């Protein structure tokens, strides 16, 4: 435990060489599907509870046709952000544009019309228990005043699109979580929206179902060109799907850019915490518990290397050759994110502290962030 804490405190991720990539530029006005300009949202004091500032200084633009992840812990302001995009709430300051229109200035009928071009899917699916799958999908079309025949045609198309045509007459209580979310997606796409907001849509699903829902969303983005805004507290979800990532914390945007840049060069501690979860940068508990602070000749020095990009290529073999030692691989996790390798390696160097210092300096000469965690037998 101590080891882990000291790692976080010393911030091994931060010590990594500074980013040479340019942070994502805010797209030009015409390219933006969703655009926040100087948005602040404050909920007024109510029944003795003080007023709450949920969002402040929010400026970003989500490019047309993209999949953008909005990542934050619970209470970071994600829900407020969503409700501002679909016009359920108005910003206290600033403006929110969707598809070139200032949705924060609309109300009544104009707002309801604009909301039809914004689809939304939910963590708990929010299907009507009293309606069949087909009737649930038909709901937004009924609200938009479509004719019965047009609705029947469109619903059949949508059931095909989400691959559950055989569940036409089933009630939600008869369906699995993944099937319910497919109906949710079909319903959200019914009125052919230009934006699809996904509010923690996979958080209630198991990993395999999550994967299939994310694949479906990727297909929809590719085939229909729908811009997808993926609100999530799970970095792994954003990583699988998003090209752009916006990290929010305490109502502020703390990081904003291409997913590969954010994963390889996270700037903010919050982002680093998120990354540690998904990359497995944390030292395995079983190893941490065996670590000793002082070297002993028969033991191995435990070194952890953070892999960001190509610098870590064949590092185990290179170390073995360079120092003529047997390098023990104690734990490793490498992923490819946005075409870049990201992860960590924990290796054991034999001979107590005899060779370890040279290994560390070799690693830093080769632009690899590394750290000695301790020693194991």
């Amino acid at each position, binding site marked *: 435990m101590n080891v882990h804490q000291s790692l976080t405190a010393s911030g091994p991720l931060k010590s990594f060489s500074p980013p040479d990539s340019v942070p994502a530029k805010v797209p030009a006005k015409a390219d933006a599907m969703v655009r926040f300009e100087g948005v602040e949202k404050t909920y007024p004091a109510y029944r003795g509870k003080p007023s709450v500032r949920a969002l402040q200084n929010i400026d970003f633009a989500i490019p047309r046709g993209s999949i953008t992840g909005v990542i934050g812990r619970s209470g970071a302001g994600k829900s407020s952000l969503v409700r501002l995009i679909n016009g359920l709430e108005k910003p206290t300051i600033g403006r929110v544009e969707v598809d070139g229109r200032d949705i924060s200035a609309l109300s009544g009928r104009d707002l309801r019309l604009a909301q039809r071009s914004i689809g939304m899917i939910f963590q708990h699916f929010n299907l009507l228990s009293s309606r069949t799958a087909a009737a649930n999908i038909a709901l937004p079309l009924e*609200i938009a005043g479509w004719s019965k025949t047009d609705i029947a045609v469109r619903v059949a198309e949508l059931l095909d699109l989400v691959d559950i045509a055989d569940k036409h007459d089933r009630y939600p209580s008869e369906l699995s979580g993944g099937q319910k979310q497919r109906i949710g997606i079909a319903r959200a796409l019914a009125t052919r929206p230009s934006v699809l907001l996904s509010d923690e849509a996979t958080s209630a699903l198991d990993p395999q179902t999550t994967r299939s829902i994310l694949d479906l969303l990727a297909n929809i983005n590719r085939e229909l060109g729908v811009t997808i805004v993926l609100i999530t507290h799970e970095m792994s979800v954003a990583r699988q799907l998003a090209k752009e990532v916006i990290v929010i914390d305490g109502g502020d945007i703390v990081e904003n850019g291409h997913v590969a840049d954010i994963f390889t060069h996270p700037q903010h501690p919050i982002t680093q915490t998120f990354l540690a979860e998904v990359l497995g940068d944390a030292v395995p508990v079983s190893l941490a518990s065996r670590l000793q602070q002082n070297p002993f000749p028969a033991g191995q020095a435990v070194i952890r290397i953070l892999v960001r990009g190509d610098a870590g290529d064949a590092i185990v073999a290179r170390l073995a050759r360079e120092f003529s030692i047997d390098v023990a691989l104690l734990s490793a996790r490498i992923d490819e994110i946005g075409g870049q390798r990201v992860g960590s390696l924990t290796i054991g160097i034999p001979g107590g502290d005899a060779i370890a210092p040279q290994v560390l300096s070799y690693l830093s000469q080769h632009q690899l962030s590394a750290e000695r965690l301790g020693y194991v037998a």
Partner: protein
Amino acid sequence: MSPELINLIIQATGESLFMVAVAAVVATSFGLPIGIFLATSGKGELFAAPKINAVLGVIVNATRSTPFIILVVAIIPFTRLIAGTSIGSGAAIVPLTIAATPFIARLVEAAIREVDAGLIETASSFGATPLQIVFKVLIPEALPGLLLALTLAVVSLLGYSAMVGAVGGGGLGDLGIRYGYQRFMPEMMLAVVVVLIALVQTVQTVGDYFAKRVNRRLRHR
């Protein structure tokens, strides 16, 4: 029991059913919208009107806390105005309706409040109008609860309808009081009670059946 007495029971049962049916229909047609409004007019809700909500709540509570027998007597002038008389089954419908309306409104309010707020938010995000939300989301989703509420209201009305017998309202209660009590005919009293029990049992069974049928929250088969 003589055929005359059996005829009396049949006739009284018909009167009771008539009173209850008319009162239930009229009270529901007022109580349903009032209940929906009570459930949706709080601060920040669909038809937000917290002040009207509060006033309506007080009126509903006042009517509900007045003992029924007092209500019947207290509104005699109003009953005369509406029904032209204050005696008989037709006249009894007026106090029955007035007593049942706030009762139904509170039951409807509770049933509507059971609907997941997320569904209202969902429909709003599709651009639904408040009325569309009421008719396409709230009422269909609350239907099992609404049917049970209606069942409970009808059962209570059967009880009330027996009570109006005490003040010349006709029906089974009237029969029980006049023959069973005043003429001391225990078999008549027993018959009235048995018929009332059978009616309540039937109403409850039918109500439960329909409420269960429209409830899609449970897995079927």
